[in-house]
C-alpha cells in the first residue's frame, strides 16, 4: 500500500503565506501530495487547516509562495480555476444550496446539457450511480437538500466532488457528522479514490480515521508546518504531540525527525 511516496507530487506548495489583517493565518507552509496518496492534514483549532484548504481551493489567494500542480507552476485565484485544474473540495460547511434538490446540488456549476437545456434525465441517472457507489442512504434525489440529515448532506457533498474527474480531492472533516457505518463507508471511499490514482487531502480531528487511511500526516500548528509523518512509521501519540505543541523545542523535533531514519537504517 505505501510504496507510493516516490511518486512525483501532483500538487506541491512551498513557502505559502496568508494574512488576514493582523493575523498571520499561514506562514511559510510547505505541503505536497502525490497521485495515489492520502495525506492527512491535522492540527488544533486555529492551526490554519481550513485556511490552507481554501488557499488550495482558490477561495483565498495566498500572499506569497509557490504552487506547482502537475509539474507546472500555477496561481489559483478562483474556485473555478481550481476546479478546472482538477482540484475538488468538500468544505466543512458542505457548501450546499438548501433550496435545490440533490441532483441540482451534485451538478452545480457542472450541469449536463441536452440540446441547450439542462439534461435532468442524465443528471438524475448519474446521481443514482454515484450515490449507489457510495452506498448512500438517500431515499430520493428530487427532494431539497434542506430536508436531508447531516450524514446524507455530507454524502451529497462528497459525491459532488467526484463529478469533475479531479486529480486531487480535499475532504475537510468528512466524518465529523457521520454515523459508524457511514464513517466506514467514507473511509472506504477515500481508499477507493487513492486506488484510482487520485491525490487525497484529508483534514480530520479524528486520529483513528487518520491512522486508518492516511499514508502521510502533515501537522500544522499556529499557521506553521510542525512536521510530516509517515503513518507506517509513527504512532498517534507522536502526531498528537506535534499537534498540541509538546514537541516544539528543537531537541524533541529533531528526535521525531530522526526516528523514522533510524528505523530505516
Amino acid at each position, binding site marked *: 500500500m505505501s510504496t507510493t511516496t516516490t511518486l512525483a507530487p501532483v500538487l506541491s506548495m512551498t513557502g505559502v503565506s496568508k494574512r488576514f489583517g493582523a493575523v498571520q493565518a499561514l506562514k511559510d507552509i510547505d505541503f505536497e501530495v502525490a497521485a495515489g496518496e492520502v495525506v492527512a492534514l491535522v492540527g488544533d483549532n486555529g492551526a490554519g487547516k481550513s485556511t490552507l484548504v481554501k488557499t488550495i481551493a482558490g477561495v483565498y489567494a495566498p500572499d506569497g509562495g509557490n504552487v506547482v500542480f502537475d509539474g507546472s507552476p500555477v496561481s489559483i485565484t478562483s*474556485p473555478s480555476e481550481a476546479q478546472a485544474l482538477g482540484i475538488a473540495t468538500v468544505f466543512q460547511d458542505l457548501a450546499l*444550496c*438548501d433550496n435545490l434538490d440533490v441532483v441540482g446540488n451534485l451538478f452545480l456549476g457542472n450541469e449536463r446539457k441536452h440540446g441547450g437545456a439542462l439534461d435532468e434525465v442524465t443528471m*438524475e441517472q448519474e446521481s*443514482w450511480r454515484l450515490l449507489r457507489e457510495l452506498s448512500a442512504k438517500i431515499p430520493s434525489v428530487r427532494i431539497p437538500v434542506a430536508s436531508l440529515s447531516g450524514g446524507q448532506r455530507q454524502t451529497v457533498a462528497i459525491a459532488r466532488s*467526484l463529478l469533475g474527474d479531479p486529480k486531487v480531492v480535499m475532504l475537510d472533516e468528512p466524518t465529523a457528522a457521520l454515523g459508524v457505518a457511514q464513517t466506514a463507508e467514507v473511509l472506504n471511499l477515500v481508499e477507493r479514490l487513492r486506488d484510482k490514482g487520485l491525490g487525497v487531502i484529508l483534514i480530520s480531528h479524528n486520529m483513528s480515521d487518520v491512522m486508518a487511511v492516511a499514508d502521510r500526516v502533515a501537522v500544522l500548528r499556529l499557521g506553521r508546518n510542525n512536521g510530516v509523518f509517515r503513518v507506517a512509521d509513527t504512532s498517534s501519540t507522536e502526531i498528537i504531540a506535534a499537534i498540541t505543541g509538546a514537541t516544539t523545542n528543537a531537541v524533541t523535533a529533531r528526535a521525531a525527525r530522526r526516528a523514522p531514519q533510524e528505523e530505516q537504517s
Partner: protein
Amino acid sequence: MSTSQTPTDPTAVPAGPVVPADLQDERLIAAQGLRGWAGATWERVKSGDLGSLPVVVGLVIIWGVFYALNPAFISSRNLVNLSLQMVPTGVLALGVVLVLLLGQIDLSIGSMYGLSGAVLVVLFVNQGAPIAVAVLLALAAGAVVGLVYGLLFNRFGVPSFVITLAGLLAILGLQLRVLGTDGTVNLPFESAIVQFASQMYLPAWLSYVLAVAVPVVYLASRLRTDRRRVAAGLSATPVTMVAVRAAVMGVLLVVVVAVLNDDRGLSTMVVLFLALVVVMDLAIRRTTWGRSVLAIGGNVEAARRAGIDVKRTFLSVFVLCSTFAALGGILGAARLASANQSSGGADTNLNAIAAAVIGGTSLFGGRGSAYSALLGILVIYSISNGLALLSVSADIRYIVTGAVLLLAVVIDSLSRRSRAAHGRA
C-alpha cells in the same frame, strides 16, 4: 468508475421485477396510479408544500366574490379589459421575480417604467425618430440602468435595496428632464405601437390553435422526457396522468380563449406577456443560467465555490430586471397612448413587487417561479378592476390590496414553517 465492489448488503438487490433506480429505497412509500398520485399530492399540500395552490384558491375566491357582487365582472368585455390592464405591470413583476430569486430587490422599476415611456414618446413624437429606434433606445436605457446597478453591486457590495432606492430618485429626475416642459406627450393613435398595445387581437382561429397547441407541446415534451427516463432506468409519470394534466390544461385554455373571443379576443400584447412568462420559466428551470440564479438565491457562498460566476449572474439579472421595467413602460405608454410626469409613479412599483410575492416568490431568495408574476398580477388587477366596477374609490382599493399582500406573506411564512416541520424545507 469501479463497480468491482460486490455488495454484501442483502437489501441492496430488490426482489421481483426491475425497480426504477429512483424508487429502490425501501423507505419510499409507493404511490401508484391516479389514486396514489392524488394521495401523494394531498400529503404534500398537508405538509405545507403548497406551490401556487394558495394564489389559485385566492383567485377563485376573489373572482367568486366579485361575480356575486356584480356579474359584469366575469363578462367577456371586462375580462378582455383586465387582460390588457395587467400586462405593463405584469412585465415589471416578471423582472422583480428574477431579482427576488437572487434574494435582491429593485425598487426603481416604477421610475424605470416612467423613464422608458418618456424616452419613447419624446424620441418618437418630438424628435420624429422611427418607432423601432425609439423602442430600442427605451429598452437600451433600461439595460444601461441595470448594468450600472450590477456594476455598483458587484464592485462595492452595496445592498441592492440602497442602490435601487438611489436609482428610484435619480431615474425619476431623468424622467422629468427627458419630458422637459411638455409634461404630457401623446402618442398618435394610429402609430404601430399603440395599435399593437390596444387594438391588435389575434384572429379567433389562431387563438384556438394556440390554446390547443400549448397542451399538445406539453404532452409531447413530457412523453419524450418520460421515454428517456425509462430508457435511463428511472421512473416515469403514468401516461394517463400526463394526459389528464394536458387535457385539463387544454380545456382551461380553450374556455379562456372562447370567453375572450366573445368580445375583442386575445390581444397581441397579452400574448407577448404570456410568451415572456413561459420563456422566463424555461430559462429559470431548464438552463444553466437559471440554475445559477436559484443556487445564488439559496446560498451565495456555495454557488461561488461551485465555480458559478456569481458577479456575472448578478449583472445579468439586474440588466434583465431593468430591461423588463423599460419594456413595461413602453407597453404602458403604448396602451394609454401617452406618457407624462406621473407615469410609473404612485403604486406601480409596489404593485409589481406585491404581485411577485403574492404569486409565491419568496422575498428571501431561491424560491419562486416566473408564473408567480402572472398569478400575482392577476390577483392585484382582479381586485382593482373588481372594485372599480363596484365604484369603490382608490382608498379602499389600496387597503384591500395591502391586506391581500399581507395574507400572501402570512401564508408563505406558515407554509415555510410547516415545510420545515415535515422535512421539506
